[in-house]
């Protein structure tokens, strides 16, 4: 490898970390690293003091393996992002440097795993088999991850082996072949391991594009998915159409609903403030419009209710036992409550994304101005939030009924006072970041867990608790309502940030 290629490859491996720094998310990465270190520390302590020897050994192997895979995922994703078709075609040595970076990292990780396996499982002067098997397994896992990052549909393949290879006929058909491979490998383990690893390395080197039109198409697809994932991390659920042609087909019913609502509000248009804001919200909420979110909540509820009915009455086993004892209901209630606070995360992001359209909206005749606009927007957001919240209630009624546990209401109850967080000074809104999106979730969860403990110990206090939550919500909203009349006009959002 020439010095130039080596330098380029090292720079490529540094890229994901530099992107974090450039985006101003370096400190967030440090917070996440500290949290991960804390988690690992707690797990190690748990392994040392509370977990039995055999299980501890397995876990000691599993956690570093997950860490290694995560690091590979991050680095190889960055290499794929750098594998731009224009660079592949026009930048001399770009492809070589990409391959060198990927292969160098892969060889390093495989060698590391083999070394650790030899140290942990091998015996002095004994067989090298554990290290060789570990090297092959690590190489295959890393190669599969790399391939699946390039062709996302491969993730589905992960689940195929279980139903397919579980069939006795399949196992019987494959067993002679497996026996032959085993025999060859046992006869010359080092040679076959090296040949296998070489084949994997060749496969890895071929994952990068050649700058042709297929490369351009694949790159565009991957970039689209990456952007969707980034938006998702900020609470922005894109429309299904963003996923391409099939997404568009699957999302057509949701889009039809929004189109029908738009046609309805245009048909019923009048200079009244309610009518003006109903039309404005179609733009302000964009892909997070309440019609779309309500449809989503209804669909999820149907699935949950069908599942609940089936597990509660028609199944047996551990899961059914968990449902019978009400534990699964509580876990489900936490998951479903996440759905009710979705507007808390998505509406500020939607305001941010529609800020350029807002420049046209505020010039429209009939649009309220100043404090009147702030109040109209706040009412609209609260209505949206309460609508999603109340649409999700049937699932909680069912959970409370089947689970016979008052504390299934805890987290969804905690979501109610959180509605006050919706009302903020939109004129100073900034691009939402992942940490800011996490805060409302964590706050809701913390308050919900506190409520859960209270209701678990005092289930008879459900009604007074509900009244208390209502009063707390009203007090918080009254406080925010007074504040929003002093804020600058909300739209266009973010202009004073």
């Amino acid at each position, binding site marked *: 490898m020439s010095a130039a290629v080596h330098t380029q490859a090292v720079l490529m491996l540094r890229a994901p970390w530099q992107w974090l720094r450039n985006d101003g998310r370096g400190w967030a990465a440090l917070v996440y690293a500290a949290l991960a270190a804390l988690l690992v520390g707690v797990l190690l302590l748990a392994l040392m003091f509370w977990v039995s020897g055999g299980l501890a050994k397995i876990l000691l192997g599993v956690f570093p393996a997950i860490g290694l895979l995560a690091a590979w995922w991050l680095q190889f994703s960055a290499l794929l992002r750098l594998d731009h078709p224009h660079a592949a075609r026009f930048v001399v040595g770009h492809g070589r440097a990409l391959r060198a970076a990927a292969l160098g990292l892969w060889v390093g990780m495989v060698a590391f795993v083999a070394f650790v396996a030899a140290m942990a499982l091998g015996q002095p002067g004994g067989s090298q088999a554990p290290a060789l098997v570990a090297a092959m397994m690590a190489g295959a896992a890393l190669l599969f991850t790399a391939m699946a990052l390039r062709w996302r549909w491969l993730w589905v393949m992960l689940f195929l082996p279980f139903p397919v290879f579980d069939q006795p006929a399949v196992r019987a058909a494959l067993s002679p072949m497996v026996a032959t491979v085993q025999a060859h490998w046992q006869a010359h383990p080092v040679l076959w391991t090296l040949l296998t690893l070489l084949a994997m390395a060749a496969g890895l080197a071929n994952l990068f594009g050649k700058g042709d039109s297929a490369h351009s198409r694949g790159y565009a697809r991957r970039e689209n998915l990456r952007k969707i994932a980034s938006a998702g991390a900020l609470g922005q659920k894109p429309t299904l159409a963003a996923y391409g042609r099939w997404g568009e087909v699957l999302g057509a019913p949701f889009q039809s609903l929004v189109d029908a609502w738009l046609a309805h509000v245009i048909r019923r248009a009048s200079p009244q403030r309610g009518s003006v804001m109903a039309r404005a919200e179609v733009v302000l909420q964009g892909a997070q419009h309440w019609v779309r979110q309500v449809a989503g909540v209804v669909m999820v509820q149907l699935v949950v209710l069908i599942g609940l009915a089936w597990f509660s009455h028609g199944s047996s086993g551990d899961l059914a036992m968990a449902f019978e004892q009400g534990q699964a209901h509580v876990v489900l209630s936490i998951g479903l409550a996440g759905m009710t606070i979705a507007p808390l995360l998505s509406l500020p992001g939607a305001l941010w994304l529609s800020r350029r359209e807002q420049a046209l909206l505020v010039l429209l005749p009939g649009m309220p*101005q100043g404090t009147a606009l702030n109040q109209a927007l706040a009412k609209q957001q609260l209505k949206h939030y309460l609508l999603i919240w109340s649409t999700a209630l049937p699932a909680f009624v069912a959970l409370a009924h089947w689970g016979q546990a008052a504390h299934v209401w805890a987290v969804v109850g905690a979501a109610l006072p959180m509605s006050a967080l919706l009302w903020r000074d939109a004129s100073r809104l900034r691009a939402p970041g992942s940490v800011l999106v996490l805060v409302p979730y964590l706050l809701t969860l913390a308050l919900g867990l506190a409520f859960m403990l209270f209701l678990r110990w005092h289930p008879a206090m459900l009604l007074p608790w509900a009244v208390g939550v209502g009063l707390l919500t009203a007090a918080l909203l009254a406080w925010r309502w007074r504040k929003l009349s002093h804020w600058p006009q909300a739209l266009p959002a973010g202009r004073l940030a």
Partner: protein
Amino acid sequence: MNQHLLAATTPTAELAGVSLAYTLGEPVLRGLDWRLLPGQVVGLLGRNGAGKSTLLQALLGLLEPQAGVVRLFEQPVGSLDDAARSRIGYVPQQSDLFEAFTPAQLLAYFKSFYPRWNEAKVEGLMSRWDIARDKRIGKLSVGQQQRLSIIRALAHDPALLVLDEPVSSLDPAGRRDFLSELVEQVLERGTTVVFSTHILSDLERVAFNLAFMNGGRIALQAPLDELLDEVRVLTGTTAELQALLQRLGAQSLKRTPLAAGRERVLARLPAGVHLPPEANADAVTLEDLFMELT
């Protein structure tokens, strides 16, 4: 000169002492004064980052200045009534807006807000510019998105049309179509038009007035024909040029020192005044004016 400009007495827009800075940033507008008269067509020129978009947004009340006053149709821009807002048309710099709408939905949407809507004009432009009605705007080409944005802004027959680089993504045929539509709008309705652009040939074709933006202010505003007739580049010694400018009553727009005590002066002569034959003077083009004044 435009007849509407001569007839006008009340400005359509008036900015006085407007200063505006973004958070933690240098001021973009510094005590800017500007008047737009009814029927005036103004091409706003300035280098990248000079603050043209900021000025247009402040003019429309989309950005609040830290100092100064902005009035549209004799009303404070922060509290325009519905009648005033229905007289404004705006084409922002970005054309990729309302991407989830179809053009038909977008036009129906905007129509629902305005008391007046020129359906014939919309239909005519939609057909002439060949815009697919039921394709999502996100899937239209950038040029078509920009055309649609222009149709939307013209559809309610505004009295003030503000266009922020409206033709940057249009091909020459599209630009020609747009400009002829603009001229028609001005001649038919006496609309006040202000638009920023970098395509100087378009300004030569349409803009009756040019406003040059520099240092957060309007450095010069005058009709294009007058500028081409009256502005000259004079070269000579400082003393000679000083004497010449004083004698002619000319206005010095920009002085550039040269070697050996000489200098080059961009000067505007009073109307009807001619330079003496011995003066070392060159006529200017619009590009020269752009380079010197922005």
